[in-house]
Every structure is written in structure tokens, then in C-alpha cells.
């Protein structure tokens, strides 16, 4: 279980996140919904250990992970721009986490991961030859392949065009739902959030203003802003 406790993050003097506090049970998918610039990405980066919180705590199964460096947290993060390694092939990208974890039979696991995102046979392709949708799938496969304890997706469909989004939205939510994965999806798109999870946290200016299922929030929005943003 992931628990974020009254967390504040200041970056170069200004408050980016204030009083963030929530729990995510194992096997659940949460969506963090908010307009761009509200601090969603920073929240994921802080949970991943790429940003240190100014106060508060991040706990996994009851123990603080603040002293655990990023590479030992086993929290996967799919970056907004995908951050695929340009000097490696598709297979090397997807297998990177497995290699770092000292896994055996990496090739077979890479092939499985690629099949699950519909890219079997793409192993030897160079990143620069991939289309936007293919890059998204490779990034997803790379994040999921080492089976992280927690999966975080930062605007997973943000950079894609409309048609592709619909297709990949279904696929991404299928992958997250299928494996009992504990996951956080960050998005500024209400439909995306609803499609991928049934529990939402609505963020605004560095604060979580409301949590709950879509229906709960729609029924009793915390304020007008939430109401307008959700509906």
C-alpha cells in the first residue's frame, strides 16, 4: 500500500505541492486529475524519489521510502515525453529495467512485454524510426517489464492525436487492470481519468481538493471549480 503523508514540496523557494495526503491500496488504480501546471508531475517525481519533499513522508507498506534512492524503490515511472533511450534499440529499452535488476532470460521477457503492447517483432527497431503511438507502447512496456511495485504514468496519452488516444486508452487500461497492478495515472483529461480508474484525486495549484469515485465527486463537488472541471 502506498501512503503519502502531509507532504509539502518547495522548488527554488516556491511551494509546488502543499499538504498532499492520500492512500492507495495494493492492486488499485488511482487517477490524479488536474489542469496543467498544478503539480501533478512533481507529485509523481517526488514519489519516485527524483524530487525530495520539504516535509511529510512517502510510505510503502507502512515503511518510509524517503531514504531509499530512486533506483532501489522499484517504483516505475512512465515519463510524459516517454524518455526512451535514443542510443538503444526497442529491445534494449524494454530490457533495461530487467538488466538493472539482474534478471535472467531477459530476451523472453522482453518479447512477452512487447507482445502485450502489440509490438511483437519490434525488438531490433531504432527508437527514431518509431511513430508516436509506437513510442508510447514501448515506453509502457519498458515501465511494466520489470514488474515494479508501483506503476506511475505521467500523461500517458498526452502527446498523441485524438484517434490514437482512444485506441491506446483502452489498451493501457486493459494492461493496468489485468495484472492487479498498483498504479497512479496523471492526466488533465477527465475522460481519460475515468476510463483508467474509478478512484480520482482532483488537484489544483499544488493541493488535492477532492478525492473519491467519479460519481461521488459529481454528486457532491467540493466547489464550483471542481464541478466545472469534472463535468
Amino acid at each position, binding site marked *: 500500500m502506498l501512503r503519502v503523508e502531509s507532504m509539502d514540496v518547495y522548488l527554488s523557494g516556491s511551494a509546488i505541492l502543499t499538504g498532499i495526503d492520500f492512500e492507495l491500496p495494493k492492486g488499485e488504480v488511482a487517477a490524479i486529475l488536474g489542469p496543467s501546471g498544478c503539480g501533478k508531475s512533481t507529485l509523481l*517525481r517526488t514519489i*519516485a*524519489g*527524483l524530487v525530495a519533499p520539504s516535509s511529510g513522508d512517502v510510505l510503502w507498506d507502512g515503511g518510509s521510502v524517503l531514504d531509499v*534512492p*530512486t*533506483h*532501489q*524503490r*522499484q*517504483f*516505475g*515511472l512512465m*515519463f510524459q*515525453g516517454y*524518455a526512451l*533511450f*535514443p*542510443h*538503444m534499440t526497442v529491445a534494449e529499452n524494454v530490457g*533495461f*529495467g530487467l538488466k*538493472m*535488476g539482474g534478471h535472467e532470460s531477459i530476451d523472453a521477457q522482453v518479447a512477452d512485454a512487447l507482445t502485450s503492447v502489440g509490438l511483437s517483432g519490434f525488438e531490433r527497431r531504432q527508437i527514431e524510426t518509431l511513430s508516436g503511438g509506437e513510442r508510447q507502447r514501448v515506453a509502457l512496456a*519498458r*515501465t511494466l517489464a*520489470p514488474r*515494479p511495485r508501483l506503476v506511475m504514468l505521467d500523461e500517458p496519452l498526452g502527446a498523441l492525436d485524438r484517434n490514437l488516444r482512444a485506441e491506446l486508452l483502452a489498451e493501457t487500461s486493459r494492461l493496468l487492470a489485468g495484472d492487479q497492478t498498483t498504479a497512479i495515472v496523471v492526466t488533465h483529461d477527465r475522460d481519460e481519468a475515468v476510463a483508467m480508474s474509478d478512484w480520482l484525486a482532483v488537484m489544483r495549484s499544488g493541493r488535492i481538493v477532492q478525492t473519491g469515485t467519479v460519481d461521488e465527486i459529481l454528486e457532491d463537488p467540493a466547489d464550483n471549480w471542481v464541478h466545472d472541471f469534472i463535468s
Partner: protein
Amino acid sequence: MRKIRWGWVAVAAVPTVFIGYFFAYPVARILILGLSEIGEGFSGVEARLFRVGWFTLWQAALSTLLTIVVAAPMTWAVSTYEFKGRRLAMALVTVPFVLPTVVVGTAFLSLGVSESVAAILAAHVFFNVAVVVRTVSALWSRIDPSLQEAARVLGASEWRVFREVTFPLLRPAIAAASSIVFLFTFTSFGVVLILGGFRHATLEVEIYRQAVTLFDLPLAAALAVVQLLGVSVALWAYARYQERRSVTWTLDRATRQPLPAGRRRWVVAGVVTLTIGLLMVPLATLVTRTLSPDLYLRLLQTDPVVGSPAEAMRNSLLFAAVAMAIALVVGITAATVITSKRGRLSTWFDMVLMLPLGTSAVTVGFGFIVALDWPIDLRATLWLIPIAHALVAVPFVVRSTVPTLRAIPPELREAAATLGAKPSRVWRHIDLPIVSRAAGVGAGFAFVISLGEFGATSFIARPTTPTMPTMIFRFLARPGQTSFGMAMTMAVLLAAVTTLVVMWMDRAQAGDLGRF
């Protein structure tokens, strides 16, 4: 409390120890030795020293002025107009600049010139035209044409536009180019030694003469102090102009007009052909005078006095390979520190690592002799030669790798960390492979610099382990047509290898640019 990352400390230690022991420490020893000699007052050689200092200064100033005058028409042509063969013309103009100084000296001797100031000045112009053409045209071709058009509409003639608009805008680039040319000619060694002998000695040549021929190390050190002072002033002037350089009125891309028909076309064609023709004369003469198979066959024989040219070639290639490896390791670790965003440490590293670039090669070689007897006497080892070469080459490796490292998106490193890579593995799997591609160009620079390095090598190379440049010099120093033929043939070979490597680098750079 922050944990100390020992891997990072090790990375930072490599360039620190290398530059500290092989550069900063020898320079400090020279300063101590030289300043105490100056304190005691020169014993009866003031007149000669004053003459040498004055000659160094005025020949550098005059060389700079002549270079700008000779380069100006060509710079105008390649900056203003787009024409067929412009890129080739730029490449040809650059050829003399990449040639080793001994090759330039030999090429001028092959013209039949005798040791004279005129020969030195001509060789300096030959060598440095590329600096002015490239530096100034980089800015000139980016000047927003609407500025010049506005002046025309306001009633200025083409000449007035140049005087009132273009030239003032170009002044920072001209100043920068002048500082570089001044620096190069002020510290010129090989060319002056070959074309001027000891009669027309610059500070560099005089340091060499005092230290190697007359064994007066304190006096040589005193001269080196004067030399360092001159270099510092030139560098300071250069840095000042860099700071003031404003880019707000320039365009992102070069804009050149198509070449108009009529008289203008002939003027441009004439300027380009004449400039390139003049630059090619010494090289063409050198090559034509060696067009005989006998000369090349003789390279396989061992000269009883000077030694075996084949062995010198082997030494040079070996030293170049080792120097390249050292420069790569030091340069890449240094670039890692510079781009690590560790505030002051990074900035400080950036500055310190450029210092060997401004210091003359003779100072480097002389410093090795003066200082490297402590803590153990390294002066007899062969390693000193590739180390000296690497020292000169490190700034080039740093310069070619830092932009690539800076361009790596931070998300790549972060993604690797979230996938379980510890910092050292992030560096090994992300930074290193990406930077290795850019390092190819730096490695090429290091190789070429080492092959042609003469100033430092002349201090530390033993007669028993000659390099190509030192052997060419020894053939030149011996009278007789046979020796001169050997020198010319070796110079052609050296020039050929150098040009090939530079051509390869040019392509590698063009192909790799903007890939990431």
C-alpha cells in the same frame, strides 16, 4: 546528511589529478624559478631579452594585421554570397590551419625562401587566414539583411552600408579573431624556429634555446613568466570581447544572397580563386618537389645520424594513439564534472580545463623538464610525450563533448534511475554511450594534435625516440639536398595523414549533429 558518492569523487579526481600534476604544478614551478631569477636581475643579457620580447610582440601584431587584411575579401565573399563551391572553398581555406607547424615551415622552405622575418610573417598569415574567415563569417552571414537594406533605403551606398552598419556589427567577431591570431602568433614556435632560426627568435624560441641548447633553466623560466604574462593579457582581452558580444540582432540561420550576374560574379570568383590559390602555393610546391618514388623509398632506410624515418612514423602513431586514449579519459571525466550542475565546482572546472589551450606548448614541455622530478623522476619515461600531447588535446575533447552531455534530456537519466539503475550505471549506460559518439570528433582532434605536436615534444623527446615532427626538424637542420628531400617527404606524409583524419572528423560531425 548527504552521503558522499565515491564513484563521483573518483570521476572528478581523474581530471583534477591530471591537470594539477601535469599542468598547474609545472607552471607553478616555472613561476617560482622565473620570478626569483627576475628578482635577481638578468645578468648582462637584458639587451638580447629586450630585443626578443620586442620582436615577439611586433611580429605577432603585424602578423595579425596582415592576416586580417588578406582574409577580408574572402570573408566578404563567403559571408555575403551563396555560390557553387563555397563549402569546398571553406574547406580548402581551413587546410593550412590544421597542418602541423613543421609541415608549414617545411612547405615555405620548399618555396626556396631563406630565413627571414618576411617568411615568418607569410607563414603566419598562411596558417591563420582560416581563423579570421571562419570566425568572422560565422557572424557576418547571420546579420539580419533587413538592417543593411534599411540603410540602403535611407540613402547609404553599398560602401557606406559596410562602414556604418556591417563593420560595427562585426567588430566583436573581428576582435575575437584578432585575439586568437595574436595568441597563436605570439606563442608561435615551430614556424619561427624553422623560418627564422635563432637570429629572429621569439620568446618561445628563446626559451627553447636557453633551456635546451644553453641549459640556463632559470633564465628560460624568467622568459616563460614574461610569455605567460603576454598570453594572459591576450586571453583577458578575448574574454572581455566574448562578454560584450551581443547577439540580439543576428538570425538563427545564415542568410546568403545568390550570386548576381555581371561584374560582381567576377569579383567574387577572383577573390576566392586568388585567396585559395595563394594558400595552395606552398603546399603544391611541397608536394611537387617530392613527386619521385626514390624519395619515398628512402624513408625505409635508416639515416646514420638522424635515425630511421619508419621508426619515427611508428613512434608518432603510437604516441598519438596513447595521447588520444589519455585525452579521452581525462576529457570525458572532466566534461562529466562540468555538466554535473554542481555549481561553482563545475564553473571552476570549465575554466581551469581551458588553461592548457592558452598556454604555449613550449611552456608545457619546459614545465615537464623543470618540475617532473618530484615525487619521482618521470623525466626519463616515454609516457611524458603522449601525456604532454594529451594535455594540449584535453580542451578539444572537453569542448566537443560538453554540448552533447548538456543536450541529454534529464528524463533519460531519471528514467534509468526509476528502472533500477544506480548513479554509476546511469553514467555507464546513458551518458557514456551517448557522449562516445561526440567524443569521436574530440578523439580525432587529439590524434591530429599529437601527430603534429612539436613545441612540447622538442623538449621531452629523446633523440632515440624521435617523432615525425622532431625528425623533420632534424633533417631540416642538417645541410644538403638529400636531408631536405627527406624532410619534405616526411612533411607530405604527415600532412596527408592529418588531412585525412580532419576530413573524417568533418563528416562524422556533420552526420551526428542534431541527432539527439
